[in-house]
């Protein structure tokens, strides 16, 4: 099977060209622009699907496509400075491409329903196209620099879409906050890239793996830390910013100012997942930098902390935003405990069910129209009983809630349980890993609780705002509202991702070939990369070889029988615990909000301090504003301003200006007397000569003509006679 550039390039270029075209035509031909956007993403979905199915069905699990071309080459003597650009496709990339294009296409379709009445309907699609192409390009990138470029491009799209309703109060601030907060992480990411460059001399993933295998990082120190650790921390801080992890998670809830479909695409399914994707790509670096434990702690704190905040939210989108942070925490926890495969699986399953949850929430919000304020309602206290009004949305959202809460046979259970099982396994080896493990399990319990709380408050019980309820139309099936929800909710079934519930042969419901995820997504073995050579970037087909038979899935991972037994036992225990806590979370939510046996107000009163802390998001926003910004940054600002105005401006800039003036006076005198004098002399002599010529140059054509004739005659006489 040969791949050429034409199999891969359209995936990125179709949405990009859609963006370029739409940017020009969107004002005049809005519906055509929307059609172009949706069509282009459908086209790139087909290309991605071909790659994806080839990768899972045809190719061996080690198959990869890696093509580069030289971007620039500034090498000088023995100082190499050469940057390549290119694509790198392995199983993970192929899966990611398929997920991103698929989810993006469904969200495009849903947007034609959700944004239809908006006055900036077309512009929304312009941003979506740009975002999608940037995300796809990031996934295909083969080196950290191009990842960084598209990373920033996505940041810009996110910024514009959060501020999409810029008339709304706070939308502008929210977009600025998102942009600036992620910038903190991005700066560190850039430092990380520089650190890697300084060691490897290249930023290509393959070169980095090869350098790690060759032990280039060992023994290098910087700032008193091993260089590998420093680089790994910096790259991971990029993830922390983009994926809204613990210290920098404050921007994501505010990002909900954007339109709901863009929240689904950018702030739930794809962009925030790009951070985790980066961590997975750089996993060998994290290992060699020995920061995996710190990563797991960060992930555990985020997973648990965000889940607790989600408990008290009343805005339906805010609940989903915090649940997104929490689930991203699980992915990072998975990276930290070495559960490479499960972390990526959770990324994929989360993208599907969280996109569906957001779209369902969008469907609910769009239907609830307050005819007093002419605004859409997204406050859960005003909802209730909506399952009678919108049964199809309800069903889709229920599937996804099952998935996220970790009910067996749904995708979220499969992936989250594998992460927690691996965490438990780590904890049996090293006692320090009990902390993230317990945080993870507690978070799972809270997840089940707050998600079902949201479901019960929204769809069950009596309608709490009778007026709003009565004015809501009964849901009719429409293709662009329900079909995306339907497709996404079908893919919340665990069967699509794994044949068994824990991935270790437990509760096996289907054959080996359903274990494609386990087989294909494996930790990069760095030693394999030393021998790999880059392929030239060509337009003709280049067979990349390596087309041997797929090996069977080996559930024992090459462990000895005793160890394998231990692994299985731990995973089974983890699965059982997961199931128990998921159902207990659901039960608690049902007792409080469905059957109303226990009054939630009692808990609020008992733990009122905690309640306030949760409502204020642990005061982290205030902390950042008061301490970091007012105490720190503003002070720093004043100091810098003083340095700038008092020192630079007064002495250096003004001094330079004074010196310039002195020099200028000298120069002017020289200029006037000597230079101008000689220039004038030239001019005068030319002018004197000019008087003779000017009488001939009268500009009268006939005079010229007579001259031509006379000269011509002269020639003729001279030559022929």
């Amino acid at each position: 099977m040969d791949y050429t550039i034409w199999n891969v390039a359209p995936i990125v270029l179709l949405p990009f060209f859609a963006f370029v075209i739409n940017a020009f035509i969107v004002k005049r031909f809005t519906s055509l622009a929307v059609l172009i956007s949706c069509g282009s993403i459908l086209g790139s979905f087909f290309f991605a699907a071909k790659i994806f199915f080839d990768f899972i069905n045809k190719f061996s699990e080690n198959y990869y496509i890696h093509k580069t071309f030289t971007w620039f080459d500034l090498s000088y003597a023995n100082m190499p400075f050469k940057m390549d650009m290119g694509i790198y496709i392995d199983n993970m990339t192929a899966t990611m491409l398929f997920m991103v294009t698929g989810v993006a296409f469904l969200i495009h379709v849903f947007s034609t329903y959700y944004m239809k009445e908006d006055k900036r309907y077309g512009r929304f699609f312009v941003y979506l196209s740009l975002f999608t192409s940037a995300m796809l390009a990031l996934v295909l990138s083969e080196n950290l620099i191009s990842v960084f470029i598209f990373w920033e491009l996505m940041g810009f799209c996110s910024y514009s879409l959060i501020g999409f309703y810029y008339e709304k109060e706070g939308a502008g601030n929210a977009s600025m906050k998102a942009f600036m907060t992620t910038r903190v992480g991005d700066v560190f990411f850039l430092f990380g890239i520089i650190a890697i460059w300084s060691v490897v001399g290249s930023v290509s993933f393959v070169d980095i793996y090869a350098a790690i295998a060759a032990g280039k990082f060992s023994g290098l120190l910087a700032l008193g830390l091993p260089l590998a650790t420093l680089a790994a921390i910096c790259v991971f801080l990029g993830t922390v910013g983009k994926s809204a992890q613990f210290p920098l998670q404050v921007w994501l809830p505010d990002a909900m100012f954007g339109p709901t479909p863009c929240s689904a695409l950018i702030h739930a399914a794809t962009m925030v997942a790009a951070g985790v994707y980066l961590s997975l790509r750089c996993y060998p670096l994290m290992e060699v930098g020995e920061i995996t434990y710190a990563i797991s702690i960060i992930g555990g704190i985020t997973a648990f902390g965000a889940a607790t905040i989600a408990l008290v939210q009343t805005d339906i989108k805010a609940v989903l935003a915090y649940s997104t942070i929490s689930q991203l925490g699980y992915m990072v926890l998975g990276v930290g405990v070495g559960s490479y495969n499960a972390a990526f699986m959770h990324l994929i399953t989360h993208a599907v069910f969280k996109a569906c949850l957001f779209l369902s929430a969008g469907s609910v919000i769009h239907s609830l129209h307050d005819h007093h304020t002419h605004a859409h309602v997204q406050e859960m206290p005003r909802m209730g009983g909506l399952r009678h009004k919108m049964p199809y949305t309800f069903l889709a959202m229920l599937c996804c809630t099952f998935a996220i809460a970790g009910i067996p046979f749904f995708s979220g259970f499969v992936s989250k349980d594998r992460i927690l099982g691996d965490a438990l396994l780590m904890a049996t080896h090293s006692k320090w890993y009990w902390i993230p493990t317990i945080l993870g399990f507690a978070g799972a319990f809270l997840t089940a609780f707050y998600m079902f709380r949201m479901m019960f408050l929204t769809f069950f019980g009596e309608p709490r705002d009778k007026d709003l309820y009565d004015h809501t139309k009964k849901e009719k099936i429409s293709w662009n509202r329900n079909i995306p929800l339907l497709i996404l909710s079908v893919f919340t079934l665990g069967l699509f991702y794994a044949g068994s519930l824990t991935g270790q042969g437990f509760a096996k419901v289907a054959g080996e070939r359903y274990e494609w995820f386990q087989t294909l997504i494996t930790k990069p073995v760095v030693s394999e990369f030393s021998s790999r050579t880059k392929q030239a970037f060509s337009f003709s087909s280049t067979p990349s070889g390596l087309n041997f038979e797929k090996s069977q899935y080996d559930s024992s991972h090459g462990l000895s029988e005793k160890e394998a037994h231990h692994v299985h036992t731990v995973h089974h225990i983890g699965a059982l615990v997961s199931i128990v806590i998921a159902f207990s979370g659901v039960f608690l939510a049902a007792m409080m909000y469905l059957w109303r046996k226990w009054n939630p107000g009692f808990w609020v009163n008992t733990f009122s301090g905690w309640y306030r802390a949760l409502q204020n998001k642990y005061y982290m926003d205030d902390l950042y504003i008061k301490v970091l910004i007012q105490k720190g940054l503003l002070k720093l600002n004043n100091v810098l301003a003083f340095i700038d105005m008092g020192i630079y401006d007064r002495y250096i800039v003004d001094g330079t200006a004074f010196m310039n003036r002195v020099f200028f006076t000298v120069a002017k005198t020289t200029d006037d007397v000597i230079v101008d004098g000689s220039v004038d002399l030239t001019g005068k002599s030319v002018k004197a000569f000019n008087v003779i010529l000017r009488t001939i140059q009268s500009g009268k054509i006939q005079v010229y003509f007579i001259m031509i004739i006379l000269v011509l005659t002269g020639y003729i006489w001279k030559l022929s006679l």
Partner: protein
Amino acid sequence: MVSLSSYLFISFALFISGLAVMIARKNIIAILLGIELILNSAALNFAAYARFVNQNIDGHLMSLFIIVIAAAEAAVGLAIVIRFFQIKETIHIDDATQLQA
């Protein structure tokens, strides 16, 4: 009577007339008329030589191209005249002594 020398004389007369028109006239259109006369004399020469000397029709082709070029020249020349008149409200050649409008 129909001979090369008579044709060459007629052609010579046309050329001289054209030359005189181009120098004597001060009206741009009249000068263009003179150019037409000169072009015609050249074309007539080609045709006459083709008939009496070469005895093939390559000369005819040359005359044909001269006619084509004359037509193009007339079109562009007159367009320039009209434009010039729009700007200066005159077609006197002595007003056209500057390149800028």
